């Protein structure tokens, strides 16, 4: 049974809006009731403008907004792009999306709405741009979905996450960050949120692609032609539409494929768990950690405290060219968040953002972490002698998982604290 359903059934006062209106009159005539709106990706547009040494014209920007609205609707009334020959079916389901969209409320049947605005919007923002009211203060910053890239997943770096990957993040949260676990929600509520996140990602990616498109346009040219053109020169009119559909398809395609791309992991050979085998494995893992093939030490540091490479940035931040103060200031003025360095994980804390299961760590090492400097290790192949075998990776996993229990990692060694035991 859901809180929302109860709320709707027992709602004591239904004339809420009447009351609100009354209060409004009482206090301020000035401000009306605003609709939640998708925010344009101003930062990316500005970046494109700087790169292309050009400026988007009003109609061009307006086109972008209208096209997005046409494909994806509004926060309160979302829809999915209808593109000939493009089947979104399993990827995003409109009903599930609708369950998360809109204001926090529930209809007569007790069906909740606005799950996203109830649970996510404070940090990830209405647009999924990671710019909610609370975002600026969080460390790390909340994810900006609009690149369609997610860090902790079972697919190779650069590919989209699987549905399962996203669901797992909602279910377990991201340890060591402000991303909480939504375990306590009903399963279909979590499902709905996953679909909504995908919906926002697709929208954000299309928006970026549109910006890329606009940059290439010559002066005065536009993404779409005026409806009046439809009859005058249909082919160029339809040509433009076709191009837009093509963009949407290009954005959706990798998402559709992703679910099949989860990297399979062979079960470990039996007996790996018995002590001396494990000890051996850990020792071997240690060698690899410091060796030049896996080369973990370069970034995670000589003592695995994550202090090897402390002045790099993740891809979301790199878009702001943190090194270039003049352009950076322009991005910040448009609402981008103050750049922060990305730190390699301190492996001694025993906090694993992407999950602590051996397979999670295996994926991190074998696939790399998308959007971050963490690369994939090279696998041994006929033409690449200097690669790792799955067993090597397991050794590294074992070593990494043993680190928090080394004496060096023990809390009381790192941070002596007065802990008082009670009778």
């Amino acid at each position, binding site marked *: 049974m859901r809180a929302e359903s109860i709320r709707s059934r027992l709602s004591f006062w239904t004339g809420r809006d009447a009351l609100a209106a009354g*209060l409004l009159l009482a206090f301020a005539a000035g401000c009306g009731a605003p609709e939640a709106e998708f925010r344009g990706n101003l930062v990316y547009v500005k970046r494109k403008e700087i790169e292309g040494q050009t400026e988007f014209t009003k109609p061009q920007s307006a086109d972008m907004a209208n096209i997005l609205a046409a494909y994806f609707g509004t926060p309160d009334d979302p829809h999915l792009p209808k593109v000939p020959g493009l089947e979104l079916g399993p990827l995003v389901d409109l009903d599930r999306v609708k369950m998360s969209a809109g204001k926090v409320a529930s209809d007569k049947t007790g069906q909740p709405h606005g799950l996203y605005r109830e649970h996510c919007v404070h940090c990830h923002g209405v647009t999924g741009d990671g710019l909610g009211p*609370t975002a600026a203060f969080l460390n790390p910053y909340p994810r900006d979905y609009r690149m369609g890239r997610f860090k902790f997943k079972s697919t190779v770096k650069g590919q989209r996450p699987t549905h399962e990957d996203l669901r797992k993040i909602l279910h377990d949260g991201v340890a060591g960050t402000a991303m909480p676990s939504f375990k306590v929600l009903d399963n279909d509520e979590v499902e709905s949120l996953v679909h909504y996140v995908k919906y926002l990602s697709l929208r954000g990616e299309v928006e970026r692609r549109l910006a890329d498109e606009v940059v290439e346009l010559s002066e005065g040219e536009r993404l779409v032609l005026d409806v009046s053109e439809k009859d005058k020169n249909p082919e160029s009119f339809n040509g433009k539409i076709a191009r837009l559909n093509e963009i949407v398809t290009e954005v959706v395609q990798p998402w559709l494929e992703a679910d099949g791309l989860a990297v399979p992991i062979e079960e470990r050979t039996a007996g790996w768990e018995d002590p001396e085998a494990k000890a051996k494995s850990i020792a071997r893992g240690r060698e690899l950690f410091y060796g030049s093939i896996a080369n973990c030490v370069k970034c995670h540091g000589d003592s695995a405290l994550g202090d090897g490479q402390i002045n790099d940035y993740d891809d979301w931040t790199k878009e702001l060219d943190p090194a270039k103060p003049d352009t950076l200031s322009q991005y910040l003025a448009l609402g981008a968040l103050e750049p922060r360095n990305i730190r390699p994980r301190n492996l001694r804390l025993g906090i694993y953002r992407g999950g602590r299961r051996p397979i999670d760590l295996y994926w991190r090492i074998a696939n790399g972490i998308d959007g971050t400097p963490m690369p994939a290790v090279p696998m041994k192949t006929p033409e690449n002698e200097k690669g790792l075998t799955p067993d090597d990776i397991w050794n590294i996993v074992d070593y990494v998982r043993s680190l928090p229990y080394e004496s060096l990692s023990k809390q009381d060694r790192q941070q002596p*604290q007065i802990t008082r035991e009670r009778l």
Partner: protein
Amino acid sequence: MTSVPAGALGHAEKHAGGIELGKFIRTYVFSLDHKIIGLQFLFSTLLWFLVGGLLALGIRWQLAWPWSDMPVIGRMLFSGEGGQIAPEFYTTLFTMHATVMIFFVIIPILAGAFGNYLIPLMIGADDMAFPTLNMLSYWFMWPAFFCIGSSFFMPGNGAGSGWTSYPPLSVVQDAAPSSGLSQTMWLLGVTFVGVSSMMGSVNYMTTIIQMRAPGMTMFRLPLTIWAMFITAILQAFALPVLTAAGFMQVTDRLINTGFFLPEGLVVNNSAAASGGGQPLLWQHLFWFYSHPAVYIMILPAMGMVSDIMACFARKPIFGYKPMVYSISGIAGLGFIVWGHHMFVSGMQPLLGMAFMVSTMMIALPSAVKVFNWLGTIWGGRLTFNTPMLFALSFVSMFVIGGLSGIFMAATPVDIFIHDTYYIVAHFHYVLFGGTAMAVFGAIYFWFPKMFGRMMNDSLGKVHFFLTFVFLNGTFYLMHVLGAVGFPRRLADPYDYKIFEHLQPVNQFITVCAIGMVASQAIFAFNFFHSMFFGERAGRNPWKANSLEWMAPSPPGHGNFDFQPIIYRGPYEYGSPEVATDYYPQTQPPPPGVKSKSPGGH
């Protein structure tokens, strides 16, 4: 001419000489006259009372309809989210509501406004002992107003770690959006309030001890003055602790002194700059002040209520000395009960037992007072005018607030109801049902003295009725919420299965709260209207005994146009010695009558 407040008139006459700016400023702005300063306090606090009330509505709105668009403020600050507030803003709402109500309304309106106005008048002095200090105590409120007001416009839209400002949340700047500059401003603000009250209390003590009119023995003082006196002592001894603690927290934040931070603390993935301290230390220091502060917030109200009751029961106060003793008893015990705010804080449980006993004991004097008030109206001739109704409601509400306190005092029970709405109900019954109602009563009662005009009694009764009804509608059911374990300070409690069905009650409460705030409009109108157009009041419209009523209304500079000499206590109503049913303190006994009234040496 009628548009000049009578108060101003009566006053301006004293220094005739036309409208001259410098004089005006000296007279009404940086005035040394305790009455003007009292009125300045009164007006400032009433203004903040409105602010605090609106903040409360914000809280209630969120609790009734979480995440729906909040009228006005939500729409101003969160238009991008469609007026849906951010959770940290909710923490700001309740933090600022409490801060404003406690530090800017209740404490200053009791000590600052009424203390200032009444003490010299009731003891027969022409002014405070240290007029300049007195003026400063008001003007030191302004930096406080500024600091705390401005914190609304800083990152996080205002301090958000609760009025109790518990570290580490309040000390570690990365712990919350509002733990940055706005928290620092908040702390500075509280420190200024402390300085202001400190100046006031020193002044009150000196004045009451040193400047009583001839014949005004300690036991001829009205209970109001006794209460103010004890309150002043409480403040003088408790406040420095808070001020010091507040300052320690400021240094913790600004120069990493680490008084309140444990070693190796990491919040929001950034390590605290210092360590080696203990968060509980703050709670001890804070409550060492803030528990006595609870009595600072109620004792003067009790005093004023006693005076109003005796006057409209036309009967001596029942058990004058027991009243005085219980006030003192409350003050004394008030210093050794702070731990009952910390039963589940991680404080050594053995201490819990000790504090439980002392806390149980402090309920005693309060009980005694209640019985005495009942004794006072027993066998009297009650006039039900607005001040009296408010005074009576004080008793009725204070009983509820007092009794619910016993639950919290019982440690095992407190385990369950600590930090639930049970406690919210408790202190709102004491502070709103109690103090605020008493303050309303006092305003209606002394308004004629302040402005020389009466407030409209019928409007007053309407105001009383609505406030009384909505007040109970708002706070009573909070006991029930508390019994379910409904916690305070949750922006959206309905995610918890155990609380999800409590929303309708909360909606009911919210509607009542809105009604309560709305009905104060009647009071505001009555207040300002009567100030200019109310019917003129003579020196003693209520036929009261105490000294202030012997002075002109409003009293001019120097208060009395005669040298008051006191012959008896202030509660000689219906004394057989005279024909009238009242017997002013200054009226010499009729020839041949040997006065047997109490307090006579």
